[in-house]
């Protein structure tokens, strides 16, 4: 049988010498500083992400161009030479081909 008075007395005895919680020194200043910096970080995060995404995109693009550049040069240079030197003839040949195809 648990007696009410005894329970109260024992509850007081159990907790009487338990240390009570106390905020550490400068708790308020620390919390205020943390709140300010956390908030700043939170606000900066979207901008930071966007900037990082743009930088990462640019780096990937540059890397791709660098990787593909030999092929690009190998194809683009002869084509541009051919167009410069034989542009007129190529144009006529293309015209004749199209007319011939449509004529049939």
């Amino acid at each position, binding site marked *: 049988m648990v007696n009410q008075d005894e*329970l109260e007395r*024992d509850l*007081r005895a159990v907790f009487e010498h338990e240390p*009570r919680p106390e905020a550490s020194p400068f*708790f308020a200043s620390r919390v205020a500083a943390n*709140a300010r910096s956390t908030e700043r970080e939170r606000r900066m995060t979207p901008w930071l992400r966007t900037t990082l995404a743009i930088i990462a995109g640019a780096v990937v693009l540059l890397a791709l161009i660098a990787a593909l550049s030999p092929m690009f040069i190998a194809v683009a240079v002869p084509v541009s030479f051919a167009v410069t030197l034989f542009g007129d003839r190529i144009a006529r040949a293309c015209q004749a081909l199209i007319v011939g195809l449509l004529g049939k």
Partner: protein
Amino acid sequence: MTGGAHDDEAFRRLVESYQERVLRLAASILGPRHRSAAEDVAQEVFLRVFRGLPQFRGDASIGTWIYRIAWTVAVTAREQLGRTERQTALDEAMHVHSGDDPMATAIDSARRRAILEAMEELPHLYRSVLHLHYWLGEDVAGIAALLGAPAGTVKSYLHRGRERLKTLLKEKGTRW
């Protein structure tokens, strides 16, 4: 709280005004062996308060609003404390009060352990009001302010908390 040293100072004063009571409320839910966790909870509470201040409409007093946040954060923290961690804390509590401590003679260790174990099993509300009253020395009015409940309701919580504790102690077969 839009920024600047003035707001920082205002917020620091707000924290200073409520830190002790927030810490007590958090500790009452977490228990005596998690005082360091109580300070972490208090810090998280004030971070949420800082973020929430622009949206605070003043429907309730700022104290009531802060205590509500504190309750939610502390209960979450308490539920995240594993059972093993709580058991370790209980063992430490028993160890601290054994030996030559005069209190250890005032209440034998079996009773002490039974009470501490039963307290761990109480619902958050009853554990909190019993801790606030018997450990942290809060009177009914103080508990009422922390819980945002009328004094009569707090008395009823205390009564029901003791009844639940008695039932748990009976179930454990504690001899009184």
